């Protein structure tokens, strides 16, 4: 009963504890933030990997922090989806960390305004590790209040990361982001309060088991949903996303677009998953409608952008839509819908992070990211541009990528349920995606030579980490049974 007794599922805690403590160490180790940060990242990734292996071999489990039982204690639950997300974070996070190491090294080596880059790096690592820990906590927590706390932690650290670049635009964007995020988390908290009021419990599984649709519950769900939509920037709440993601430092953009968004969406999904059998068609249609609007509008905006990072950011807006249009398809079909959407989330995470990393490298090399002036980057950064193109493929959903598998599952679900409007939205969305990605890629891969920095400032680790992520996105097209098998594991 008491905390000293080691529970059998204690490995659940390490992916949370390790990055948090590493954040502390990185903050304190003034001289060597990079070393401690990278070590922390590596350890966290290892811990996540271990968790994954454990779950694969022994099934999921749960863990009460400090031995305190719910409701007062905080409980972690490692079931299939959660561990999948942790693993996704680990893979993406590790690559981003490696990239960040090279990124700051290059920036510092380039010199420039005083010690700015050194300061940036000094704060980057603690914030990033804090974010990582919070994200892992968010994925693993079983209790809805803890979700709120981790959500806030995630939000605060990401705002910090966003503001890190020091550009006025990024600060304004961070401000917007923070306010939107506050609004979202307060709504979420109010919803949590209503749920607790009606159920007297904070454990999500308990609540969902006993759920009945009384008006307070409905209000709670409405508040939680809208709050989380704000957090993950579903259309029409995407207003904060593009400026924040596009103006941040390169690794930060990747973190925000690849991982942070998934946090909000993950909670949304878990709330609704148990709740769906109770609700009518109208709600899911609204959700999917918003998702569809996001797909179209985001893709259209991405097409309209003139800066590469803005384009990628709006692409995130669009891709979030895919995470929501799954709801009408979840109702029927034994878990296929959930599998599809998780697979989409995973492959999007890898692909989008790779895109942002590659875009960051290009930005760094060229000193700008105006798409029309990017011709000829291929000659300078062959690996990076290749990674960019590969990641683009996954986003487009072309075979043989993870995006393809996910889209395949989506489409087959939609077709088998005769949801033609979803099919239409997806096809149109895919075409638009193809158009904007091709627009970028055609410039980036253009063989024409354009004057830029002749000296290559982008480090090898930056190039290869982006490529590695892109390759993972491709690899996901071949190993689908593995993650999806994990998906069946219950906590």
């Amino acid at each position: 009963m008491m905390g000293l007794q080691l529970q059998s599922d204690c490995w659940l805690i390490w992916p949370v504890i390790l990055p948090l403590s590493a954040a502390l160490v990185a903050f304190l180790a003034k001289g060597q933030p990079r070393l401690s940060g990278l070590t922390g990242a590596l350890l966290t990734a290892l811990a996540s990997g271990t968790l994954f292996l454990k779950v694969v071999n022994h099934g999921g489990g749960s863990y009460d922090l400090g031995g305190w039982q719910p409701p007062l204690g905080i409980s972690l639950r490692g079931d299939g989806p959660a561990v999948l997300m942790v693993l996704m974070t680990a893979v993406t996070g590790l690559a981003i960390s490696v990239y960040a190491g090279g990124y700051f090294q290059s920036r510092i080596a380039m010199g420039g305004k005083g010690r700015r880059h050194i300061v940036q790096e000094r704060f980057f690592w603690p914030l990033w590790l804090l974010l990582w820990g919070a994200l892992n906590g968010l994925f693993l927590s079983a209790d809805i209040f803890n979700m709120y706390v981790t959500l806030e932690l995630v939000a605060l650290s990401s705002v910090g990361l966003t503001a890190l670049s020091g550009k006025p635009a990024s600060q304004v964007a961070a401000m917007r982001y923070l306010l939107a995020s506050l609004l979202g988390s307060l709504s979420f908290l109010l919803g949590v309060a209503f749920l607790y009021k009606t159920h007297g419990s904070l454990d999500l599984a308990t609540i969902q088991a006993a759920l009945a649709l009384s008006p307070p519950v409905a209000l709670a769900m409405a508040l939680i949903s809208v709050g989380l939509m704000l957090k993950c920037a579903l259309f029409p709440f995407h207003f904060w996303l593009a400026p924040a993601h596009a103006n941040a430092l390169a690794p930060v953009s990747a973190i925000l677009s690849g991982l942070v968004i998934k946090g909000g969406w993950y909670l949304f999904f878990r709330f609704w998953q148990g709740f769906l059998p109770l609700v009518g068609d109208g709600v899911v249609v609204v959700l999917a409608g918003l998702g569809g609007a996001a797909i179209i509008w985001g893709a259209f905006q991405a097409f309209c952008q003139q800066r590469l990072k803005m384009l990628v950011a709006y692409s995130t807006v669009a891709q979030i839509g895919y995470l929501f249009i799954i709801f009408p398809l979840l109702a029927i079909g034994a878990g296929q819908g959930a599998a599809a959407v998780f697979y989409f989330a995973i492959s999007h995470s890898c692909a989008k992070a790779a895109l942002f990393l590659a875009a960051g490298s290009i930005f760094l090399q060229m000193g700008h990211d105006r798409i029309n002036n990017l011709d000829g980057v291929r000659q300078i950064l062959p690996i990076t541009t290749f990674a960019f193109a590969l990641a683009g493929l996954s986003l487009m959903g072309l075979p043989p990528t993870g995006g393809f598998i996910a889209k395949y599952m989506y489409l087959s679900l939609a077709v088998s349920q005769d949801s033609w409007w979803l099919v239409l939205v997806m096809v149109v969305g895919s075409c638009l995606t193809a158009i904007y990605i091709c627009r970028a890629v055609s410039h980036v891969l253009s063989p024409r030579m354009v004057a830029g920095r002749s000296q290559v400032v982008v480090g090898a680790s930056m190039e290869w980490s982006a490529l590695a992520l892109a390759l993972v996105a491709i690899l996901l097209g071949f190993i689908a049974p593995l993650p999806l098998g994990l998906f069946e594991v219950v906590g």
Partner: protein
Amino acid sequence: MIWQNWLLVMILLSSLVPGLIIFSLAESRHGLRTTLNLFGAITKMVLVMIMIVGIHQGKSFAVHLVLLPGLELVLRADLLSALFVALSSILWLFTTIYAIAYLEDSPNRSHFFGYFSLCVTVTIGIALAGNLLTFLFFFEMLTLSTYPLVVHRGTTEALAAGRVYLIYTLAGGFCLFLGVVWLHVLVGPVDFSREGVLSPLVESHGQTLRIIFFLLIAGVGVKAALFPLHGWLPRAMVAPAPVSALLHAVAVVKAGAFGIIRVVLDVYGLQTAKGLGLLMPLMLLASVTIVYGAIYALKQDNLKHRLAFSTVSQVSYIALGISIGHPLAIMGGMAHLVHQGLMKITLFFCAGNIAEILGVHHISRMNGVGRRLPLTMAAFTLAAMGMIGLPPMAGFVSKWYLGLGAIAQGQGWLIGVLVLSSLLNAAYFLPILYGAWFKEPEGEWPADSGTVGPVESHWMLIVPPVVTALIVLLVGLLANSGLSPLAWVRLIINARYGL
């Protein structure tokens, strides 16, 4: 048993691996790159020969890779795929030789040959695809691996063309994707070796099957440049000549045509497709394309554009043969798959030579080219005569069987289409021949690169077109012998329909 299964993978790897190595090579490693290219091409030829002999002896080759439960990649070599594989691998060898000389001293060769090898790998993949998903898989990859080749020159025009190419093919790809998914939802995985899976559904899901057919054909039709979907093809002519040759003869357009064959014959099956009334619209479409392409070809003054529209027209012969639905016509269509490839690659090689050696791009300036480049123009003449469908060139053989099939199927009016096409072909090819052979040159050539060695230019530029032109001649002249593509096609038709 094991080697048989690995053979297919090795055929793919034989161009993929050199391609990947070439990507990483420095621009200056000309010798190594050439060696790798030729090594890959020859290895592939040898492996394909082994495979063909194996197939002929009744061995079966297949590899599976499960992507998801019920979703697997299958490589399988059947008679039809052997036809396409053989065509691709042989023509790849020639195109490689040609491209090595053609791109001498031009920048970005490592990139070019890397994608070039990738493109062939993917084409072979399309040929060997054993089910619809695998086909889709490689079909999409083909778009991506050819795009860099199309924009290789990097001019504004090339980039614009590349964009158009991508928009068309990707949109087509999504149609195909949707069709494939839909079909999977209806009947599960669609394996090419199980013809007639769809026939039980004709009664219950007729309308759905028609829509799916439309989607699939729209998907493959973009690459096959069927009439309203052909817009990308003439624009893609900005690419270097070997690319155009590859695009038109081996890879993209041919893959589309091959896709039509697969969709109609292996996915739907002839009987089902007939029962659903799907062949008639396809036939009309193909006929319109044939005439339309020829008329537009007539209007072009740029040689490559003329050839491009000629491709639009000629490739639809394949679709026409399939859509007629009679075994004889199918035979003609399949034979044209090979014949058109041989003829068109020769024409593009020659057009490339004329542009590369003399700097001449327009037909109106080609007067007297025959005197300066006799071998090139001789090859061009043979191929053009084949295109017109004159005996004994390859083109005649396919036309003949198409006509026979059309009559046997009671669609005699199609002979009118064939005849019109022949006339138009003559109208756009004969003036070229006339100008090149019988007119005097109008002074200096714009950019004559001079004679190298005993022939009119670098031998690697001259030998490929001459050899392919001779093959065009021989394929027709010896059509009845056991070694001609026609014999193989006859084997296919015999196995399927028992002629």
